[in-house]
């Protein structure tokens, strides 16, 4: 089985922070896997996903994504960034643009620079956007402005943008934490199903162990910047789950919410 992402002994501290956000982390994710990342607030989930997305600088260790090593000092080239898709917790859409425009934004990394600047999509780009819209069930919203949509609809747009990118690795940072339980399950089903159909690897973080179990093959648990659990869905019992959230919950007077 080929490897989608490999992290070897990576450490990282945010500028000005005393404690590392990633503390000698090692992790290998195989192509086609669906991995859920669990852990209390501040455990380092966002940091880990940002690292794999090539947007973190000044870390130590070794990282390779889709067979290519990442450089701690420089952003990956445009074409390689397009191979990794990212779904943001707060959607990160351009509110005043239409749904279609937002989904086409996912194609920018696939376009030559001038075409990307002008924003004139090729028929290939339009086709990728159309398929993504249909798969996310929002083809009828294409011409609506994003600021007129509900949270669930917005996350569908964000996922459609990610799918239009045709990524081989999909990173999703708490993609459903701002949605109601029914919507959350719907969106996670949509995301993991679309990824499976495309043979893409998924790594998503979540605060909902039940959803994580339902929509992944493997659970990775983080705590204080370290990986403290790594196993199949069946291996994560209730005790292990509560253990993940224990220490950080009982530290009094310290706000561990991450600044995203």
């Amino acid at each position, binding site marked *: 089985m080929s490897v989608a992402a490999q992290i070897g002994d990576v450490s990282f501290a945010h500028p000005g922070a005393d404690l590392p956000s990633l503390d000698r982390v090692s992790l290998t994710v195989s192509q086609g896997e669906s991995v859920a990342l669990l852990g209390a607030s501040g455990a380092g989930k966002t940091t880990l996903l940002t690292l794999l*997305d*090539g*947007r973190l600088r000044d870390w130590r260790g070794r990282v390779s994504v889709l067979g290519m090593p990442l450089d701690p000092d420089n*952003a990956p080239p*445009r*074409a*390689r*960034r*397009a191979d*990794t*898709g*990212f779904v*943001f917790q*707060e*959607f*990160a*859409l*351009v*509110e*005043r*643009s239409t749904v279609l*425009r937002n989904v086409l*934004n*996912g*194609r*920018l*990394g*696939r376009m030559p*620079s001038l075409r*990307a*600047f*002008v*924003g004139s999509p090729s028929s290939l780009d339009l086709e990728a956007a159309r398929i993504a819209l249909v798969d996310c069930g929002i083809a009828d919203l294409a011409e609506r402005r994003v600021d007129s949509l509900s949270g669930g609809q917005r996350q569908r747009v*964000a996922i459609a*943008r990610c799918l239009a*990118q045709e990524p081989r690795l999909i990173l999703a940072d708490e993609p459903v934490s701002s949605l109601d339980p029914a919507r959350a399950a719907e969106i996670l089903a949509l995301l993991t199903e679309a990824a499976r159909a495309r043979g893409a690897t998924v790594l998503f973080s979540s605060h909902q162990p039940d959803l994580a179990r339902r929509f992944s093959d493997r659970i990775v648990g983080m705590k204080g910047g370290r990986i403290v659990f790594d196993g199949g869905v069946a291996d994560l019992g209730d005790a292990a789950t509560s253990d993940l959230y224990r220490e950080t919950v009982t530290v009094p007077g310290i706000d561990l919410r991450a600044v995203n």
Partner: protein
Amino acid sequence: MRSRGLGSFAVGVLVAGAVVWSIVTTDVELSRLLSAGPRIADFLGRMLPPDPTVVDEIIKGGAETLRIAILGSLGAVFLSVPLGILASETMVSPAIYRPIRMLLAFIRAIPLILVAMLMVGAVGLGPLPGIIAVAFHATGMLAKFYAEAIDGVSRAPISALESAGAGPLARLRHAIWPQMAPVVARDTIFRFELNLRESLVLGIVGAGGIGFYIQTYVRSFQYDKAASVTLAVIVMVIAIEALNVALRRRFR
């Protein structure tokens, strides 16, 4: 608390000192001050009734002022787009935006009328020095506004496009521009209104526009004609404001 009381005492002394200094050193005798009221009343009396025969001059001067404001604003927009980008934290590093911001602050510190006088000296009388002066002066504010508009946008969509593989200019075009467009439209209209207002007086220093006639008529004691032109200026300012209010409503 204590130092605060001391501070306001110091401010009080400073203000009192400034007022006393002004009164003592200004060379105005009490008699002239007392007679100023009646003189002004007399002057205003000679302005009435305004002479309506200067309609042609008003139209000609007003049109030229409008042209100066339009072309000056256009020039300011052209200058402010690159300078605004270079003055924004989002687009460039501190080594670039710091000196650019200082340059813009410097430009803002020079009053328009002064720039216009210098330009009249440089390129001669007429609307051209006015246009150059307006473009230069307005850039100090407009480029700053544009930079603030760029920096005021939400960062998340920019990160999303970066993640998708968009380069800096594509991010500017597709993540930053759609967010800042209404702000830019509002700021530009606002600056155009200021340009139009401020260029009404440019003619006084010979830089073209309707102000030229006010200056000419006052100098030649034709106060009734000066009154007509002044009234026209007031009407124009009110019209500009009404237009601006209407336009602003459209860009939300």
